[in-house]
């Protein structure tokens, strides 16, 4: 499960962590991806696993459009930019939830017979649920890909440079909006992947994103802003802590462990485990 949190967090790590833009609508991006995956299954009988690239591509466009239409303007604010970003993306989240309720109704939906749902695989006598396993694999791949992308390509360097100093970047001919729109698209595409995989074994409803969003923020902050590897480590820690807490405390308290560990970590290291900002 930890790697699944990681997978949800990886997109946020890019948007929130690397570009330093607050996105309170991250959970709603996840929700949209899950619905997309559901409808692709319901109408065209495409298994979530196969539709994942499609969903990711759709969310790429969605993320970039949201950036260009809304977030771009929120970042322009000179006075209290942080609050403007928080409330703009929060308002966006409410709208998305409302729209989902309007078009899809608040009913719980699920994908009944997917390739992954409910199956287990036995490795050396230990039974592992398949969806989680695939999620873990995809998550590792996504992190590795993002890490490579940020540290080894020109685009990754442009992205970090743009966050550091948009003015100087403009002087050397990098279009800030193009770089950030691409970054938002990529972040959304990653959460699209997460949504497609989760759709095969999790209930889908308009508020589903909210329950994962806070854990995703905690994961990113635990690992430290500005670090892809940190978010990955954060995801693993969050998963482990949750599993351990669930053993000691009643299940309804399992998130308390995660939150407590976050507080503990930032009290000792105010910038998270591997943070640079």
């Amino acid at each position, binding site marked *: 499960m930890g790697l699944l949190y990681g997978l949800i967090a990886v997109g946020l790590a890019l948007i*929130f962590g690397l570009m330093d833009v*607050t996105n309170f609508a991250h959970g709603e991006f996840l929700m949209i991806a899950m619905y997309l995956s559901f409808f692709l299954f319901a109408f065209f009988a495409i298994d979530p696993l196969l539709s994942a690239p499609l969903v990711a591509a759709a969310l790429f466009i969605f993320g970039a459009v949201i950036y260009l239409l*809304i977030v771009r*303007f*929120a970042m322009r*604010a*000179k*006075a*209290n*930019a*942080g*609050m*403007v970003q*928080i*409330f*703009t993306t*929060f*308002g*966006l*989240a*409410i*709208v*998305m*939830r*409302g*729209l*989902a*309720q*309007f078009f899809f*109704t*608040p009913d719980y939906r699920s994908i009944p017979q997917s390739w992954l749902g409910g199956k287990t695989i036995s490795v050396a006598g230990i039974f592992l649920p398949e969806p989680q396993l695939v999620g873990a694999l995809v998550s590792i791949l996504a992190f590795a890909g993002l890490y490579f992308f940020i540290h080894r390509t020109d685009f990754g360097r442009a992205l970090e440079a743009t966050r550091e100093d948009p003015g100087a970047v403009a002087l050397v001919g990098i279009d800030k909006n193009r770089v950030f729109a691409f970054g938002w698209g990529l972040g959304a595409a990653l959460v699209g992947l997460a949504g497609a995989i989760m759709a095969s074994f999790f209930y889908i409803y*308009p508020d589903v994103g909210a329950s994962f969003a*806070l854990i995703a*923020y*905690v994961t990113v*902050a635990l690992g430290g*802003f500005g670090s892809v590897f940190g978010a990955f480590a954060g995801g693993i820690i969050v998963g482990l802590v949750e599993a351990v807490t669930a053993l000691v405390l*009643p299940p*309804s*308290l399992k*998130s*308390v462990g995660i*939150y*407590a560990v*976050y*507080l503990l970590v*930032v*009290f000792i290291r*105010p*910038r*998270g485990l591997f943070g640079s900002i």
Partner: protein
Amino acid sequence: MDKDFAARRRRDLIIAAVLAVIAALTPLFVKDVVVQNILILTLMYAGLSQSWNILSGYCGQISLGHALYFGLGAYTTELLFTKFGVLPWFGMLAGGVVSALIAMGLGYPFFRLRGHYFVIATIVIAEIGLLLFHNWEWAGAAMGITIPIRGDSWLKFQFLRTKLPYFYFALALCCLAWFVTWWLENSKWGFWWRAVKDNPEAAESLGVDVFNSKMGAAAVSAFLVAVGGSFYAQFVSYIDPESVMGFQFSLLMALPAVLGGIGTLWGPVLGAAILIPLTELTRFKFGGSGRGVDLIVYGTLIVLISLALPRGLLSLFSRPKKTGAAR
């Protein structure tokens, strides 16, 4: 400049007094219970937002976890009332003190954090509080507490037949929060807070006690919010963890201040006066459908206002001269 400032402060006080009198007279004309309800909530959120503004606006420590203090106020009052028969008035005070103490206790580790790390920590601590109350059997767990009805009386702060006393209490709370802000704005603390917000390092080097000024702001802010929580509990006479400590309260306290003008004296009042009736009306008009239209309208408004007026509605009225003191 100094003279201008003093004149402005005197004018603010007069405007506030006039507004308070007008507000106090409205129940003479407004008999509709639904409207009275909206007025009470508007005044309550204006007061809450004003209190939130002390820590987050003036001192610049953005908290999205004030629901914790709101809930603590509500729970302290009602636990004392239902389990030990302590009158809500004392419970209110106790809730305020408990919250202020907890805010200061949390302040020790929290105020070392900066930026997003701080904001997330405040959200997380409120969420922990929510989950703990959810599982605390003695405090009613997820079922919450239903406040027993003991008849109309000011002594027990309970009124069944009329909402008017609640209205006047909410008005008093709002005025109190405003007055505390007004008073602190021109005190040593007020200047320290603004210095801490703008540049903590520079403030520290000039002899401002950064840590203690944050603690002071947190304590005042938490105390007032907890009193608001106690009031709310008596007003709705039923509380459960989600309905007094949910994340939405943290946002509803922050939103009016942000929309009106964060870190300003009038921002929270103005923001609440517009936002809360709007919220209630959209819910009233579109909420019945159960199809989320109210959410769509409400969310769109938030996006539009925060994009169009990043410094809040108050920036529409401000002349350049005035901003010197406000920011």
